[in-house]
């Protein structure tokens, strides 16, 4: 009988596969949000496991704010499009582009509202998706700790934390009326360490930005920002320095702080994580730009 137990990573894997299949079975038009980061890498890997040997029964969708790291876009096109040959929708808020919305002039809060939250809502409405699968984890942030695995959105795509559906056992209530939708989080019960340990265990490809390398950075406030292209306005006499840095999370490059690091392998990343003094989303400037800000964003329709 000793061989009849599953390790915790395999239990989490089995649970996530169950969730993926439940979405495919219960919804008419699901989509998987793919943000290119490590959680998306794990999410995609689990989706492939869930439907093997078939194709994914839903497309992937990437909300491109136009300020993503260049290496992210390169990884997306090389791995998802070329190597795996998956159906990938890329959506950008063209109104925002036309108005020249950017994080420097409009501030991170407004920029994120328009180029991420609005863009996502536009894309979901345009394609009439009734379920959107995302890679959020409950250990990331306080408001996520209480969010359901199947999280209901009304016809304005809003989340009401006060009237969430009770969620017991693995009996997910997936029913929505026309215009309403569900956000589904198969990685709800994974932690950051689980994600990395699973990446190592399964040898899942991730964007090279997670590994330390000499990169050009400038220090803004307490944060190291990588000069990924010419659009980052430099202060007079500000010169980018080459530093060994890596990223714990990936988003828009002007809003994502780098950490100085020498970790070039996944075990080294985990090792660093266990003794690190900086929380995962801390380097994301958008989480703290207003009080209780993630909950506010989520209510408005952010992932």
């Amino acid at each position: 009988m000793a061989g009849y137990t599953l390790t915790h990573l395999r239990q989490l894997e089995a649970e996530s596969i169950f969730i993926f299949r439940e979405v495919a079975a219960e919804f008419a038009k699901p989509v998987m949000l793919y943000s290119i980061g490590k959680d998306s890498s794990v999410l995609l890997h689990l989706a492939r496991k869930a439907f093997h040997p078939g194709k994914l029964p839903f497309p992937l969708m990437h909300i491109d704010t136009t300020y993503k790291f260049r290496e992210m876009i390169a990884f997306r096109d090389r791995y998802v499009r070329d190597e795996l040959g998956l159906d990938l929708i890329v959506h950008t808020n063209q109104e925002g582009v036309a108005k020249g919305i950017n994080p420097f002039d409009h501030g991170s809060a407004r920029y994120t509202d328009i180029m991420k939250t609005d863009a996502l809502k536009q894309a979901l409405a345009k394609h009439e998706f009734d379920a959107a699968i995302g890679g959020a984890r409950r250990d990331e942030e306080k408001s996520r700790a209480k969010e359901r695995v199947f999280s209901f959105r009304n016809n304005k795509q809003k989340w009401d934390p006060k009237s969430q559906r009770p969620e017991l056992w693995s009996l997910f209530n997936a029913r929505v009326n026309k215009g309403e939708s569900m956000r589904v989080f198969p990685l709800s019960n994974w932690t950051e360490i689980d994600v990395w340990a699973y990446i190592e265990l399964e040898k899942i490809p991730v964007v090279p930005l997670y590994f330390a390398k000499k990169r050009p950075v400038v220090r803004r406030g307490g944060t190291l920002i990588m000069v990924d292209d010419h659009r980052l306005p430099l202060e007079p006499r500000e010169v980018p320095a080459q530093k060994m840095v890596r990223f714990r999370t990936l988003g828009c490059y002007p809003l994502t702080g780098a950490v100085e690091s020498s970790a070039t392998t996944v075990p080294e990343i985990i090792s660093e994580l266990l003794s690190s003094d900086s929380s995962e989303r801390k380097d994301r400037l958008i989480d703290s730009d207003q009080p209780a800000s993630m909950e506010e964003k989520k209510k408005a329709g952010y992932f």
Partner: protein
Amino acid sequence: MRPSLVTKGDIHTFLKEYDSAGLVRLLTCGSVDDGKSTLIGRLFLDAAVLPGDTLAALEEDSKHHGTQNGALDPALLTDGLKAEREQGITIDVAYRFFSTRERSFIIADAPGHEQYTRNMVTAASTADMAIILLDARHGVREQSKRHAFIASLLGIKHAIVVINKMDLVEFSEDVYRKIKADFLAFAGRLEITDLHFVPLSALLGDNVVEQSAEMPWYSGGTLLHLLNTVHIASDRNMIDFRFPVQYVNRPNPSYRGYCGTIASGSVRPGDAVVVLPSHQVTRISAVDTFDGELDRAFTPMSVALRLEDNVDVSRGDMIVPVNNVPEQRTDFDAMIVSMHAGSMNLGQEYLIKHTTKTTTARIQGIRYVMDINTLSRQDRSELRCNDIARCALSVAEPLASDSYARNRTTGSFILIDPHTNHTVAVGMILDRKAEEVLESGESSSGVHFPILWLTGNTGAGKSTLAEAAERHFNRSSPAWNAAARRVIVLDGDEMRETVSTEDDLSPEGRRKHNIRVARLAKLMQSKGFLVIVSVIAPYDTVRKEISEICDPLWVYVKRSGREAHDRPYEVPQNPDYIIDHDKLDPNTAAHALIDFIVSRL
């Protein structure tokens, strides 16, 4: 103690341990006033593998918001209620995570007071183990009884009763004993079969991770020790293979895989199965995963099954063994917990989701509503929010179901309002047959449990193993396991002091003693007991005789250095199982034996 400072050299060791750690879902019951946040915070702080940043943030927080004059305040790590109050955030059920080197924990925590029952039932639904927190100054109050009742109702078999704030009662053993006795008196009416008690001080850390110097009279292990070692693996129902078909994978005309998560039991290619509700019989031709075909799969794995024959199977069907088919019922009784803001009326039509099947259901009658403060039964004609009631239900299509006590997955369901799509109630199916048997006082007739004979040299550890197995089954076995409370140990020394008093230690005396025990074991087996014999039985010839009398499963308990010239022992050639004390620590050995027994039930 804190393993967070992992150096590069041993990160691979860490990963290996981390990968092989088990998963435990934990429910925490108690209010902030009992010191719940402090306790969880203390565990995180002292025991968990967690990013070092959390500590830095806590130090900072403690300076500004702490209640400990700027010293580290563990409550701030997890204090959901504070967040609720200060930030206007509502929390009904929150999930938190921590790992030790042995286990990974998912903690479900329901701090809400208003929707108390609803939230706690939700949090308890997936939990393996509960921490029930009491304040040593107040003892067992109504609230603790409610917690224990809900944990029991939702099928949690293991509870650790934490008696906190021992520092405020001068670490008094009398206080601890009184509370423990009070709790046990109440818990006798519940289904929590494995209860542990630990006196501690969450604030000071006594008995949380480190043994307390203030309570030398307590030797039962710290809270962390219990969390890491309480044996939960055999809670899983490994007997009844149940496979609710979740999704049919048909990528091309030549492949048809029935996807699902194994609710209970295990499966191998070649197994004869029946598909419900169509009752078509076929065999498993392959068990598929992304990583290749498996030669066996078990709960809770997510796999795809292929079948030998081209039978018609769709989502909502269930694949089960031909010789172990669940009941298919349109009428059954269930414990219902109402979660709906309004009232639920008899005869109204709801959608019912049971495993992967959705159909319609009506509540035909309310047998009683449980008052969770007094555990008394009340008559009522409608259900209000947070009511727990025994109801009679009827469904439009038969559901292939087991009782919740036997199978959490095939015994549970939710009710959905077809107009609003809200989940209005949840339910746990009751086993009417089993209850009738219990109430009429009959034993489960015809049930034949095996006899296990632990053979091995004096001092090999047979008695200790037998006792551990007995303790496990009789005190901590889940309700679905009919072997619960029916394990009996026939110990060599005890036998010699009672039934084998005339038999000496000569070879013939030993033979007579062994034969007597074999006959007794056979008799006990026929009365419905699972018999564990711990008697040396040193001779091959005698063991053959024993096999003819009672046909036991032979378990050879091995430990080197116990051989003696005057007491020859012939090592069995083909035992059914070997426990090697040279290689296993006592705890692992006991678990191995328990797992072996479970595999033979």
